[in-house]
Each structure stands twice: as C-alpha cells, then as structure tokens.
C-alpha cells in the first residue's frame, strides 16, 4: 500500500510539472524566508544571554521629564555607583563605564612603549574594576580581582593582545596612548573578546581609579558621564529597589543642584527618575536612549515586526499550499471516486493525501534550506550581521525534522479531508460541483494575502520617499566637497602650521580646525544657557556649545544672517559667541548681536547669528547652539575645489606624512558620513522592499492557484457561455472581475491600516513628508495590475479553448 502511495505521489508530481514546481518552490520560498527571519530574531534575542547571573544585573538609566517631552540617558554622576552600594544593602556589586569621546573614549592612536610606530584602534573606554566584577568579564591573563584597580592601568582584549604581543605575556607591559609618553598605561590584564552579541564592544578598558578627570569630577553630582551597572543580591525585588532610588534624587542630586544655584533644583524630584533595565534587555529595549559611544542597538519593535512578517509569510505559504492542492481537486476527484468504488475507505484516503503533503513538505524544506544558504550573504549584508545556519547544534536538524512533519501535516489536513470527501457516484457521473463550499474561505485567504501586499507596497513607497526627502533636504550647510581629516589631535602644536600648509594647496578652498562637525559622531555636549545675570532666575535653555575656528562657517558653507565671523586679529573674540537663530529665539533675544549670554560659567558677547542648520539626525529638531572661538583639534575640515578630489587628497596626504610620518591618514567625506547617518532608514527600506517583493510573489502564486481552480470549476459555465456567444473579452472580464473584487476589498482594508502605521512612523521624524492619496491609488493599481496579469493567464486559456472541451465532462 505504501509503495502504491509513493508511486502515485511521484507520478502526480511528475505529471503536473508546472503545478508541482509552483507548489514546492512557493512553499520553499516561504519557509526560507521564515528560516532567515528566525535566524535574525534568534540573534537579536541572544544578546547578553552569556552574562553569568545576568538575571540579577541591571544598568541604570535616567528618565527626564522636561517641557512635556521625555528624554532618557544612561549617564550618572561619578559618585552615584559608590553611593548606592553604600546605601542599599540589596546591591552586591557596582561597576562604572565612562564612554565619552571628549575625554578619550572611542578611536585612539596608541603604541607599545618600547616601539615608535603608532597604530589606530577602536574601542577605547574608561572603566573601573567594579565593572569587571559586576559583569564577570572573563580575564584570561592577569589577576581578575585587580586588573583595573591601579590608576593608569589598562585591560586589553585577547584580540589586541594577540595582535600586538604575539607569543608574549602582555601583563605588566606599558602602552602609550595618543603619544602621551609621560603617562603610559600599564597592562593589568587581558580579557576575553566580547562576543558579537554583547551590548559592550570594547578592546581597551582604561582605569577610572584615581582621578583621571580631576579631583572635582569624582565627587560632583551635577556632572553625569558614567554608565552604571549593579549586581543585585539574590531574591531582591528590582521594582521595589527602583522605587527606593527616588531617595538618591532627594538626598544627593537636589542638594548639589541647589548648592550651584540651579533653577532645576526646585522641581528635580518631579523631573528626574532613576530606572533600571536588566542587562539582557539592553540590546532590544534601549530605544530612545542616546548611547555616548554611538553603538547601534536593536529595537524590540523591529523584532516584533520581523516576527510578524515571518508568521505572516509562513501562513501565506501554507495558504498557498492548501490552495494549490485543492486547485487540483478535479484531477484527483476521479481517482478518489474510483478508489472508493474498489473499496478504499475515507481514513485510508486521508492517510494517502497526508502522506503526499508530507513528501511535498520534505521536498520544500530541503529546497528552502538550500535557498536560505544561498541568500544568507545577501541577508547578512542587508542587516549588517554575520548570521549562519546553526548546523552544529543538535536542535536545528531536529527542529527541521519536526517542522517538516508538523507543516506537512497541518498544510495537508484541509486538502486531505476535502479531497477524500468526494462521493464516488457524483464524481463518476461528472456532476460534481466542486469547491463552492470552500470558496468563501479561499476568498478570505486571498484578501488576507493581498491586504498584506498592498500594505507592503504602500509602506515601501513612503519609506523610500521619506528617505529621499531627508537626503535631499537643504540642511543649512553645504555637505558637498567637504573632507574631514580625523585624528589630527596627534599633530599637537603643529596643527596651525599644518593648516597653513594645506591652505597653500591649489585644490583646497578653505581649511578649518574643529571636531564639532554637523553630522552624528561629531563632538557634542549639553549646556544650559541664560541671558547674562538670569541663570538663577530663568529655566535654562538647553543647547550645545561648540568650539570652532575663524574658517569654520566658510568651510561648512553656513550662512551668517547677522553680525560677523570670528577674527584672529580681534583679541576680544575669544570671549565672543556666534549663535544660531534657534538659540536667539529660545533666549528671547530681539537684537541678538551685542547681547550677552552665559552658560553659568563664562559670559559671552554675541557677535553673529547663523541660519539654523541640522547637525543631528533629522528625527530630532534643531537644538539651540552657541559657538565659541577656539581650536578643537581632533578633526580638520577641508573644502575642496570640485572635480580634482583624488589629486588634492594625494597632496594632502603627503603634507600629512611630512608632519607625522608614523600616523595613519584617515579621512571621510562629509556627504558620505551624512548618508551613513541614515543607514538604518536605508536598511529598513531594503528589507521592506525584499519583503514586499516576496509577499507579492507568494500572493501571486496563491492567486494563480485560485484562478486555476476557479476557471476549472467554472469551465462548464464558461463553455456554455461561449456556445451561446460570449466573446473572449466578456469571459476575461467575468473572471477578472471576481478577483478584482477581492483585490478591492483588500485595498479598503489595507489603506486605513497602512495610513495609521505610516502616520505613526513618520511622526518619529521632525522633518517628514505628508501622506498623499495618489500614492495609495498607485499601490492599489499595482496590486490590480498584478492580479489581472496573474488571473488572465487562466482566463485567457479558458476563453481560447474550443468550447466543446468544457462540455465533454461525461
């Protein structure tokens, strides 16, 4: 019996080659998509799972409520960690991380003290011994208990140790960071490399022991720079602890702000809340938290979106499988009838059809795995990840096997019961009116598929338009032709003569020294500003304080709307400020030029006002900005003459080599860095596009099957109509219309839904496009066009056959 089934299955597949390949390929594409998405989700959920005692480790963050807005930050004052350890017995250990680039975190030059060549490496950060203890970071060489305890000690990663100290014990050796040979670091230990799925990605921990930023910083409560982690004792209720942390605001923050005469002190308990996030949630639930290191985090909403997409695509694929199986029912009906006549019972038939669907399921999974392997590089590229199918685990092959059985069984269930229900008499008489019972289910499934398609088409169009809008929006500065040379702080005192040399090059229009560049990744800070003398009376205007030189405004192509630029000749310009329009507005300066403003420390006279320009992601509004005269030496910016970039860059590099022969020459184009800011939008766009295409293809397969089914079912009616005189056009119209009705219903469902989703998404942008009706109409037209093309294949065939075919059913 079994061999009979297998033989029949094989012959059925081989006989209807087109149909079988559509069934198997369609199913496989859906499964492959699910596999890939599952890999992504698995990876996203795996973050920081490796941390021992991870369920007891928390990172603190602060929630600010200010002028109706909510901001989050992970920065805490230096004494915060020790204070909570002392005051809360629930806490077992605390650790601090200090990731602020301004103070030396990020990318750095360094060398072994016994060598001259400098190397550029990423991943420098300040940390304390408590961090190693709290997160139980594995130390592979050196003493884990005091690797970072001594001032000016440093812990390096295994990767770095292998690279710079091959077959040597690095512990105890000296490193010179940023050419500062007077104060080298002593290597206190080597830590294991952070796994790719850790929220921390660092290579160098520089010790926070002692007073690296001055005595005052270590005791001050009004300056927040430290990320703080804590290991709780076992059985501690974290919610209750979080509630108790209000006392830290009352007992420590408030007096400190009061002592400095700050206006925020009064309401601070209603404005600032300390919260705790489990370390395992950091990767996915830190949305909206500005990470000073500029690391990219995941987004739990994205994981949900992907998860829903996976389930959706999987359902669509199963639906197709069911549609395609029942679509062939007319061919199978006779077989069923005959088998029943010669003595088969229904149970046997159900077994047979389930067996068939299991075989098809196995084929599809095999193909899906091949497809997934083939598309993995593309998918990794889209997501900027390094995922692979986990063949080496025992769970994965087992999971595949179980999935083959479950999917084959579930997808085959409906066709099996449906096909086996045919009554032999009616089948053999040819008077079976097929599928009218299940027609409505099928219609619902098609509507579901097409709603999803239209949703994705609309989403893709608007995400694309929003991206174009952002990338082409006037920014208030000219990002073309600007090159940023990075790491110029190694030039030290020579930076001015370096600038003069560059200026002499014919391809260089202007040169400016400033690392406050108007793209994400430029140096940033937060300051409060007041009109002179109002700092204890008015609430502060939150803004940025940038250090720029006399050529900055020209080099960046910004527009001075009032007043004048800084001048080297005028001594008093050292105490002057150029502000942006927003700052003038927020401070309420009606005649900004000549007025005097303060950040609480120094008082500046405003000498000029620049047009507002975007300096962070366009998702945020333009912040008030105060620019002071000086030299922030990490970056030198060049405006180049158009058309001879490569030549000019070559000469710039040779100038660089004369000044600092041992340093790597690094540069970026401003416009490229600007585009990189929108990398996540681009990524989302390409993923959306892929899913749209996939969903459309799969939905078309479903429609193809359904139209085959319906034309088959209606072949007698079509023939009768043809005999009576119906034209091709009218048959085509009749068949297409019934599908277009379904597409139209899908459209009506998809439009409000996508409108709502897109409105919400666009509202996360400060500068956004508006939703337009015509785009929705286009999307509907695309869906209709695709539907008509798919359906007309069968309709055309039906309308072109000799009408006698449909009548010869006896």
């Amino acid at each position: 019996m079994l061999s009979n089934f297998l033989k029949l299955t094989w012959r059925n597949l081989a006989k209807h080659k087109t149909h079988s390949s559509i069934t198997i390929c369609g199913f496989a594409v859906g499964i492959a998509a699910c596999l890939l998405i599952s890999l992504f989700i698995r990876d996203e959920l795996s973050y920081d799972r490796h941390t021992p005692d991870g369920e007891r480790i928390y990172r603190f963050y602060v929630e600010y409520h200010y002028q109706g807005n909510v901001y989050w930050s992970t920065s805490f004052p230096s004494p915060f960690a020790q204070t909570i350890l002392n005051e809360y017995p629930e806490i077992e250990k605390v650790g601090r991380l200090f990731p602020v680039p301004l103070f030396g975190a990020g990318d750095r030059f360094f060398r072994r003290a016994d060598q001259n060549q400098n190397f550029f490496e990423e991943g420098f950060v300040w940390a304390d011994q408590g961090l190693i203890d709290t997160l139980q970071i594995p130390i592979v060489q050196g003493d884990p208990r005091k690797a970072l305890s001594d001032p000016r000690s440093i812990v390096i990663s295994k990767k770095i140790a292998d690279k710079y100290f091959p077959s040597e014990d690095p512990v105890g050796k000296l490193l010179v960071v940023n050419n500062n040979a007077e104060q080298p670091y002593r290597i206190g230990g080597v830590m294991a490399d952070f796994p790719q799925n850790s929220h921390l990605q660092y290579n160098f921990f520089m010790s926070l022991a002692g007073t690296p930023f001055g005595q005052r910083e270590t005791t001050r409560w009004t300056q927040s720079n430290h990320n703080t982690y804590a290991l709780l004792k076992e059985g501690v209720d974290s919610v209750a602890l979080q509630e108790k942390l209000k006392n830290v605001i009352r007992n420590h923050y408030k007096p400190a702000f009061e002592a400095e005469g700050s206006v925020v002190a009064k309401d601070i308990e209603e404005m600032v809340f300390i919260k705790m996030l489990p370390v395992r949630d950091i990767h996915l639930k830190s949305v909206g938290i500005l990470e000073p290191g500029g690391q990219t985090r995941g987004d739990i909403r994205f994981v949900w979106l992907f998860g829903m997409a996976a389930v959706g695509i999987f359902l669509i694929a199963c639906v197709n499988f069911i549609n395609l199986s029942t679509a062939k029912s007319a061919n199978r009906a006779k077989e069923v009838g005959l088998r029943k006549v010669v003595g088969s019972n229904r149970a046997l038939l159900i077994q047979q059809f389930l067996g068939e669907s299991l075989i098809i399921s196995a084929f599809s999974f095999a193909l899906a795995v091949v497809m997934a392997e083939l598309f993995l590089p593309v998918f990794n590229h889209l997501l900027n990840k390094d995922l692979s199918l986990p063949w080496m685990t025992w769970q994965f092959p087992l999971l595949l096997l179980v999935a083959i059985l479950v999917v084959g069984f579930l997808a085959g269930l409906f066709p099996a019961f449906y096909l086996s229900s045919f009554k032999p008499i009616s089948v053999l008489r040819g008077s079976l009116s097929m599928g009218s019972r299940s027609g409505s289910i099928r219609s619902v499934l098609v509507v579901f598929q097409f709603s999803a398609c239209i949703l994705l088409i609309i989403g893709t169009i608007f995400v694309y338009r929003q991206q174009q809008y952002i990338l082409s929006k006037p920014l208030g500065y000219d990002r073309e032709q600007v090159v940023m040379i990075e790491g110029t702080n190694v030039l030290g005192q020579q930076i001015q003569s370096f600038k003069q040399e560059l200026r002499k090059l014919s391809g260089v229009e202007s040169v400016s020294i400033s690392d406050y560049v108007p793209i994400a990744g430029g140096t940033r800070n937060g300051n409060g500003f007041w009109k002179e003398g109002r700092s204890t009376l008015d609430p502060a205007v939150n803004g940025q304080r940038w250090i720029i030189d006399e050529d900055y405004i020209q080099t960046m192509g910004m527009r001075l709307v009032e007043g004048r630029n800084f001048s080297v000749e005028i001594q008093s310009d050292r105490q002057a400020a150029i502000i942006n329009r927003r700052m003038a507005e927020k401070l309420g300066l009606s005649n900004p030029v000549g007025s005097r403003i303060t950040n609480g420390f120094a008082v500046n006279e405003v000498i000029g006002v620049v047009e507002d320009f975007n300096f962070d992601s366009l998702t945020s509004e333009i912040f008030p900005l105060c620019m002071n005269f000086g030299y922030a030496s990490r970056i030198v910016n060049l405006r180049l003459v158009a058309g001879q970039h490569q030549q000019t860059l070559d000469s710039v590099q040779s100038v660089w080599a004369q000044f600092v022969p041992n340093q790597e020459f690094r540069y970026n184009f401003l416009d490229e860095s600007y585009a990189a800011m929108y990398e996540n939008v681009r990524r989302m766009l390409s993923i959306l596009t892929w899913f749209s295409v996939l969903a459309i293809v799969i939905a078309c397969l479903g429609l193809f099957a359904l139209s085959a089914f319906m034309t088959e079912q209606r072949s007698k009616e079509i023939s009768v109509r043809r005999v009576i005189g119906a034209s091709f056009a009218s048959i085509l119209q009749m068949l297409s219309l019934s599908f277009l009705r379904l597409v139209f219903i899908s459209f009506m469902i998809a439009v409000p839904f996508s409108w709502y989703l897109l409105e919400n998404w666009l509202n996360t942008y400060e500068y956004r496009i508006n939703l337009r009706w015509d785009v929705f109409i286009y999307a509907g037209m695309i869906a209709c066009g695709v539907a008509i093309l798919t359906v007309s294949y069968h309709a055309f065939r039906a309308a072109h056959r000799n009408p006698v075919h449909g009548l010869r059913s006896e």
Partner: protein
Amino acid sequence: MIKTHNLSKIFTTEEVETTALHNINIHIQEGEFVSIMGPSGCGKSTLLNLIGLLDSPSGGEYYLLDEEVAGYTERRRAKLRKYNIGFIFQSFNLIDELTVFENAELPLLYQKISSAERKERVEEILDFLQIAHRRNHFPQQLSGGQQQRVAVARAIVGKPKIILADEPTGNLDSKNGEDVMNMLVDLNNSGTTIVMVTHSPSHADYGNRIINLFDGEVVTQSTNGGQAVADRSEVRL
C-alpha cells in the same frame, strides 16, 4: 446551408491518434430536419460539434451559409455561432447560478440587445414553452423536462437559422421526450433548420431525413415519410 466535403476529425492524445470522423460528405438544405443516428462512439456528437463550430476539424472543407469556415479562428467561429446557431444538449447545460429567465436571456445579452426588447422576447418564448411561471426559479428546482424547455428557450430566443440538438431527449422520460420533439417539429415548421443526434429510432423519425454513421463514416442517408426535400424548400419559397 450546411455542406461538408471530406470532413474529418482526429483526436490526438500524447501517443495515440483516434480517428473520430473520416471523409464526411453531407449536404443539408435550409428548412430541413435531419436526424443523425448510429451506435455509441460512431462520431455523432463529434460531427454535431463540428457543424456547430464548437470544435475545429482536422481536415476537409465545411461550408456554412455558403462560407468556407473550416479554417476560421475561434473568434470568427464564435461570431457566426452567436447569430446563426442554437444548441440543445442532452444534459441541458444550464448555468446553475442563473435563474430560468436569466438563462434564457443570455444569448440576447451577448447579442447586445436592449433590455426592454430582451424582456419582451424572453417572456414571449417562456410563455410559448409554458415555463413562464417558473421564470424566477433556479435550474436545480426544476424537473428534467422543465430544464430542457429552458434549454430550448435559450436555443431559440436569439432566432437562429439552425438548431443543433445533441440527444435532446436522452435524459427525459417518454412523455417529456415527446413534448420536446413536438417543439422541434413546430420550430421546423416555422422554418428553422434542425440537426438532431439521437439514439431513438422513433424520435429520429420526426425528421425528414436520417443520416446513419458508423465508425466515423456516413453509411446511409434516407429520406423519411415521402416528404421530398425539394418540395419543402419550394413550399417555403
């Protein structure tokens, strides 16, 4: 009106070729009532389908209304069919989703006749065939005889010159069978050419000529009851 010369039909399925009709030469005049007889599988229905332009021949010539139509595309055949030929089938072939009235109205819709005229003509035919009281019923609600009346109504509502009937009485009891035959005779008397395939010798006798087919070839043609073909056509003229 209908004339074939060496008409043949071969069915080809993958490797097997079956000759259904071989060198058929028949000539049917306007106003004739011709019965086609023969055993099962002799090619009666195939011949009727070729005559009715529902299928295309494999070889030979076919003149319908003095036009050579054997090489016509399906599009042109459909057009000829629409205005000239009405069909009646053994299994009625009504559309289950349409009512009696709508089924009968269908040919007029495809002939683009105005709604008022359609209504008038369909009502007239349904009255004539005594089925008007069931006009809003669906085919499954009718007896076989009633269904065949609807099929006849549909076949004649477009005023075709020729009616092709494929065993119209095959699924009916003798009473209903007689009724249908009488309707066909009435139609013939009012000038419509009728070609009918039948198994029943008694029903075949309603026609004025019988064509006997065997294994895809015409074996005999006999005129019936002394009604000379030429006489009838002269009467009509």
